[in-house]
């Protein structure tokens, strides 16, 4: 009996003290994605896995053929441990990497075949490096990490040394010295040109030429970058392996989040992202009290999430926590009701739509109450004081009722598919007798995604005034006229020709307490009073308006796959590409905003097809990764 108890105790203790992959996440990590149930991924090929954006840090290591025909199972990973992808950034350097469990190092090194062992400075830790990354193995856990110095810092130090040596700008081009390439003959000696501005000290020892060769700007920069990289790498790894300063120990919120048994967890410390943002650091010197107060405002602002897999859908349950001050602003902002008038302008057939409701007036008053004291606190900045004075006076003199009645805070948007829109084109018409030709303007059709965006308004007279004035102001322009149309059906709208991409018209509808901008001709000509029975159901609107500030629904197949790449920015395309080719529905719901937190739920109902559950989980993680990186 004693033996059994001893064995049980030993097993229990060994389980408790066993190293876990999350313990190798450095405290500098600001964003962490952890995949708990990696059993789901057993059948996924390594080639497929490394295609995902969240694996981009590993791609240089893995896109070399070493992953060919291997599944994750073959790669020596321990499926009883989590895989954690992390990112972090401060003004000096950024870190990125993955920590995971190892079950078989031989298999692991068939995938990470570019790593070579190096002498480890840390007891019990094996250290391997490659051109880009470091792989550290401690017991049954591994950390693949890259530390990169901040580019601006590298530039600053390089410039400082470069100019201190008396050099000219590296970007100055001397046309007189334009090199004429001469053929290189065997026996020629390589002449290294020393910058003439550099004074040679006769006491310098030049016997070691590798030490004393003058580097050009880029070589100098590379050396500085490399030296900084080693310094910061040591700093991060010393903290982790000597001082035991790991995220799971320094942030109890992360420790709590990672203990969840969901399929995956997400952690994003927004307060540290704000604090360590390069742009904001600038303010620490210029307006120190504001910098400190703004940081304080975001203190405790953390976003955590769980990825939960249920039957044929995946839920991403997000919790945003903030401190009292920020919570007051968010609470006031969310204290709004959806204007039911927007419902009739969202067609039932719309493959994607969102509704967003905020109380602009309340949020403004609360933000004014909280932010103005922060701004007025700074005493030694006359420019800031002048701006704050203007803000204060505007607050007194401006008719806030008119502003916040004109835009109360209910916004909606819908994607109404890709439609043919009418444009003009020039055609060449030929004379059959001579084949002479002349130009003729004719109607043409082009594919264009059709969008509608609208706001609810209590003061439709204000947008009406603006439109009437704009009609007159733009009347003398060659293109871009605004015309008022009031057809027999009682539909009235304004139309601006060649407004979108200099070819398609933009319609403006100001009716029923809703102001709409759309390129949907059908809506403008036939449904200015709403889609009536063709609009989304009251039940759907109720669902959308019942929750918090935002609701969105998107049918991936008929939306994302139809989006033309041309009209989006590279960042937007990155997000769209992550979802392209997928099918199913995504629904975003938010809970009522409280003074301490808001819950957000993203549900992905996927269509079971060739893809397995693992792929869907990875798709979801990938989309979230791109959104938050």
């Amino acid at each position, binding site marked *: 009996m004693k033996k059994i108890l001893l064995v049980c105790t030993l097993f229990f203790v060994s389980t408790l003290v066993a190293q876990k992959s999350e313990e190798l996440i450095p405290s500098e990590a600001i964003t962490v994605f952890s995949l708990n149930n990696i059993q789901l991924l057993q059948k996924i090929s390594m080639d497929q896995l490394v295609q995902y954006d969240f694996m981009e840090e590993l791609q240089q290591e893995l896109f070399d053929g070493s992953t060919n025909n291997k599944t994750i199972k073959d790669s020596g990973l321990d499926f009883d441990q989590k895989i954690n992808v992390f990112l972090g950034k401060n003004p000096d350097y950024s870190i990125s990497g993955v920590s995971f469990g190892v079950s078989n190092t031989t298999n692991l090194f068939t995938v990470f075949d570019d790593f070579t062992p190096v002498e480890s400075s840390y007891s019990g830790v094996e250290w391997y490096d490659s051109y880009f990354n470091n792989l550290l193995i401690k017991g049954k856990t591994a950390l693949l990490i890259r530390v990169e110095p901040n580019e601006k810092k590298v530039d600053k130090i390089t410039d400082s040394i470069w100019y201190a040596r008396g050099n000219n700008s590296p970007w100055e081009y001397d046309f007189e010295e334009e090199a004429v390439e001469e053929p290189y003959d065997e026996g020629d000696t390589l002449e290294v040109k020393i910058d003439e501005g550099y004074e040679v000290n006769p006491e310098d020892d030049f016997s070691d030429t590798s030490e004393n060769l003058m580097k050009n700007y880029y070589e100098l920069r590379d050396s500085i970058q490399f030296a900084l990289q080693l310094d910061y790498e040591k700093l991060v790894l010393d903290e982790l392996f000597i001082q035991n300063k790991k995220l799971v120990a320094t942030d109890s919120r992360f420790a709590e989040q990672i203990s969840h048994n969901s399929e995956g967890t997400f952690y994003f410390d927004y307060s540290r992202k704000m604090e360590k943002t390069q742009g904001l650091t600038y303010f620490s010197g210029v307006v120190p009290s504001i910098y400190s107060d703004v940081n304080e405002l975001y203190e405790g602002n953390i976003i955590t999430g769980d990825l939960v897999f249920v039957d044929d859908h995946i839920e991403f349950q997000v919790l945003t926590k903030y401190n009292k001050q920020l919570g007051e602003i968010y609470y006031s902002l969310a204290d709004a009701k959806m204007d039911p008038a927007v419902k009739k302008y969202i067609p039932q057939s719309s493959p994607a739509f969102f509704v967003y409701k905020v109380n602009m007036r309340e949020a403004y008053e609360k933000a004014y109450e909280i932010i103005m004291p922060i701004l007025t606190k700074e005493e030694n900045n006359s420019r800031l004081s002048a701006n704050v004075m203007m803000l204060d006076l505007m607050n007194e003199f401006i008719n806030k009722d008119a502003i916040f009645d004109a835009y109360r805070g209910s916004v909606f948007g819908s994607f109404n598919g890709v439609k043919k*829109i009418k*444009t*003009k*084109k*020039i*055609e*060449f018409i*030929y004379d*059959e*007798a*001579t*084949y002479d*030709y002349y*130009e003729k303007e004719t109607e*043409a059709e*082009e594919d*264009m995604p059709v969008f509608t965006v609208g706001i609810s308004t209590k003061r439709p007279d204000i947008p009406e005034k603006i439109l009437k004035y704009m009609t007159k102001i733009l009347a003398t322009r060659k*293109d871009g006229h605004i015309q008022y149309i009031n057809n027999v059906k009682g539909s009235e709208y304004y139309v601006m020709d060649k407004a*979108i*991409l*200099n*070819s*398609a018209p933009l319609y403006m509808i100001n009716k029923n307490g809703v102001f709409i901008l759309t390129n949907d001709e059908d809506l403008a000509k036939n449904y200015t009073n709403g889609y009536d029975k063709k609009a989304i159901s009251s039940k759907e609107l109720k669902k959308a308006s019942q929750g918090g500030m935002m609701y969105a629904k998107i049918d991936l197949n008929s939306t994302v796959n139809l989006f*033309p790449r*041309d*009209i989006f920015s*590279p960042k937007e395309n990155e997000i769209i590409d992550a979802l392209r080719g997928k099918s199913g529905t995504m629904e975003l719901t938010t809970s009522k905003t409280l003074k301490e937190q808001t819950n957000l739920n993203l549900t992905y109902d996927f269509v079971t097809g060739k893809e397995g559950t693992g792929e869907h989980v990875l798709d979801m993680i990938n989309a979230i990764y791109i959104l938050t990186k």
Partner: protein
Amino acid sequence: MNNWLKAIYILPLFIGLSSCVEIIDDLSMNLDGSGTFKYTVNLSSSKSKINTILNLDSLDGKKVPKLPEIKSKVAEFTSLMSKQPGISNVKVETKYDDYIIKFQCNFTNVSVLQEALKNVINTLAIDKKGSVDYAYNWISWSSTKLQRSIPEISLQKVSEIKQSELDLLRTGSYTSISRFQKPVEKTDNPNATISTSRMAVMLKANTFTLTKNPKILENTIYLNQK
């Protein structure tokens, strides 16, 4: 004849963005072998797409030139053409609202025109890949016969166009017109049509088909001996 390909060298984005490009190549021959060459690129039916793309910095890894850069390239083309021996009266008419570019010049003989275009395209070529080295003449003229063909370099360039880009050319057209001061007797290409006045020949092809078979616009036109 192969000038629709030359447009690719000057404005590489045309290929990717123009689902409906219309090109007219119009050659008027005088009896002495001199003549006028007109070249028109009409992208008006794809203008919203072009406007969109011109707003981007890059597309598929290629830098998208801004409108001023395109205008400057067109001006450079005009200036370089004017300086070519045997070339005169160079005119370029542009309608950037509709994306129509019309080029026209006079030449003393077809060899001069060929050489001038070759020189200018090579000078404007951004990289070595864009340079043209013809050992082959795409046009020749005797007093009663005009022969037009596509040089080998065109075939090479066609093979460089990606499949996805080729699909965009399905609705485009290329029209080749040859005008003479003597009536046309016959043409070799069965797809060519002779105007009712018999003073002009027109050959029309779909740009997609042209990329698949560049020889489709080859033609030899015989004029009446009298």
